[in-house]
């Protein structure tokens, strides 16, 4: 049997009847491949190599072995950034997976297809605003003349009015709350696609068994959209680990102090402000290894069917 499948023609193999000359095929592939090599493979190789070097802008790099990594292991700012990432990541992870799920369930429960579609359009609509502008808007919301301040003043909570983004106690949580109420349109659509893929017969059976709404969600919906949940877990973790645009816009340098410093921003600052490009590459490599390890182990331990994009 094994042998059989080995010799089975691959899809596309039999289509060779009147193939164009090989030279033409390779010529057509030349430019796309050259692009990937030039702008993806060379920087990737450079990133790995330079993680083991001392590399200042304008000077040739010098091989230093593992010393970047040794320094990182006791760099207080880097360790602080990891702690911040853990706090921020846990919060973002929870809200970005749960709120969109709740919203997708609510939309799924709407009887009218028309309203359901309108609601999906509505949750996606905010995506037309560029991310940078969303962060700038939230920077304003937290500012002295911002919505939070005005709201608290209007409610008579004068004691609560202070610089949410500039106070060491609140800065990280202010960053975490950007995007409230976290009804991320992309996540909602993914969950919703999963819910609509559940066969109607399964849903009816659950209803006939007398499961209440919560029971149906917990025992029927969640197990049947595990593939979507896993996908969003991976995407959220990648997004959180890589993402530092929000911090860059909101606090510029991870301040006050290093209260909002995250590894991505620290990498950026080392590369472009502190002139320590080798050190920055080492941080990037650690982040990449973490993400690869996470994705691979999640794929190994949580087996689900392949996610199929659906309208």
């Amino acid at each position, binding site marked *: 049997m094994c042998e059989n499948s080995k010799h089975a023609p691959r899809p596309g193999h039999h289509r060779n009847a009147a193939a164009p000359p090989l030279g033409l095929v390779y010529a057509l592939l030349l430019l796309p491949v050259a692009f990937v090599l030039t702008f993806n493979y060379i920087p990737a190789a450079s990133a790995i190599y330079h993680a083991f070097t001392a590399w200042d802008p304008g000077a040739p790099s010098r091989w230093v072995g593992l010393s970047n990594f040794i320094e990182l292991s006791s760099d207080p700012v880097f360790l602080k950034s990891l702690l911040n990432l853990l706090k921020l990541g846990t919060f973002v992870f929870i809200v970005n997976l749960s709120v969109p799920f709740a919203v997708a369930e609510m939309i799924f429960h709407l009887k009218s297809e028309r309203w359901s579609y309108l609601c999906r359009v509505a949750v996606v609509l905010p995506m037309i605003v560029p991310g940078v502008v969303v962060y*700038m*808007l939230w920077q304003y919301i937290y500012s002295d003349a911002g919505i939070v301040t005005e709201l608290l003043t209007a409610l008579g909570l004068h004691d609560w009015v202070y610089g949410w983004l500039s106070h060491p106690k609140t800065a990280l949580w202010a960053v975490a709350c950007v995007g409230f109420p976290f009804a991320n349109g992309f996540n909602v659509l993914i969950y919703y696609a999963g819910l609509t893929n559940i066969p109607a017969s399964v849903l009816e059976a659950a209803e006939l068994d007398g499961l209440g709404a919560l029971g149906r969600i917990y025992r029927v919906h969640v197990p049947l959209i595990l593939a979507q949940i896993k996908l969003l877990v991976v995407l959220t973790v990648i997004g959180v680990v890589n993402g530092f645009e929000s911090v860059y816009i909101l606090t510029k340098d991870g301040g006050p102090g290093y209260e909002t410093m995250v590894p991505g921003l620290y990498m950026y600052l080392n590369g472009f402000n502190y002139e320590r490009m080798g050190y920055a590459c080492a941080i990037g490599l650690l982040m990449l290894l973490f993400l690869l390890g996470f994705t691979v182990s999640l794929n190994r331990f949580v087996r689900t069917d392949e996610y199929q994009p659906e*309208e």
Partner: protein
Amino acid sequence: MQRLSREKSARAGRWSGLLWRSGLFAVLLLTFFPLFFMVMSSFKDTYQFYHSFWAPVWPVHPENYGVAFEDMKYYIFNSVLVTALSISGILVFSTVTGFLMARYSFPGREVIFYGMIAMLMIPGVLMLVPSFAWVQQLGLLDTYAVMVLPYIAGGQVLGLYLLRTFFGQIDNALFEAAQVDGAGVFRQLWHVGLPLAKPVLGVVAIVSALGVWNNFLWPLVTTSSEEVMVLTVGVLRYQARLGGLIGCRYGEMFAGYVISAIPLGILFTLSTRMFMKGITSGALKA
């Protein structure tokens, strides 16, 4: 007993239905409030902004948009140009490679395919520093090319995946018929493949457009002159020129923010269904 619980659950159903809908309404309200506030405030002058903070107020000041547009029009032009060039490149590259790899087998096909697909695994942001050093070495800083070329390189990969899958599913008889009629590779692609692939191409275009349009960090580090600056970086400068957040001319600031959302808003209005489909197809990027 059975009947009783049925009735009970029907009543509970009505209540929970109401609960679902009001929850949904509340979430949507909270989601849209900052955006509503942004649009509302963009029509106020500074005095109105401070003195009637929560409510829309008469007279409106559309001239805020004139000021904002005057200041931001080159950023918009650059963003549109960079996005259009990148999408064109992505579509051409991924169509040709996807078609060839789906229809013909040749030595090295799978190596090249997986070699390109592997790049979906590595987030570009982690290579920000070495990528910057490399394009600097290539002398590309502060050009359109420094954005367009890497965007094409990275964006074609998802397109290749989607289009190879798509072309692989098309019934071979269609192409064979064209071949019998004497059509070569290019005419088969142009007259048979492309018309069928339109929906997939639309999805690739929209996913790419979102990625390119919203990219901030790459243009931030690779461009500094106003001539090539794109909207995401430009809007930050625009805000700084208005005096930052303190003592800012808020009406004009918000007008600028609204303007930055209009181009994607137009795309969204013109192709809502494809836009929604495109967003989830981008999930393959994991």
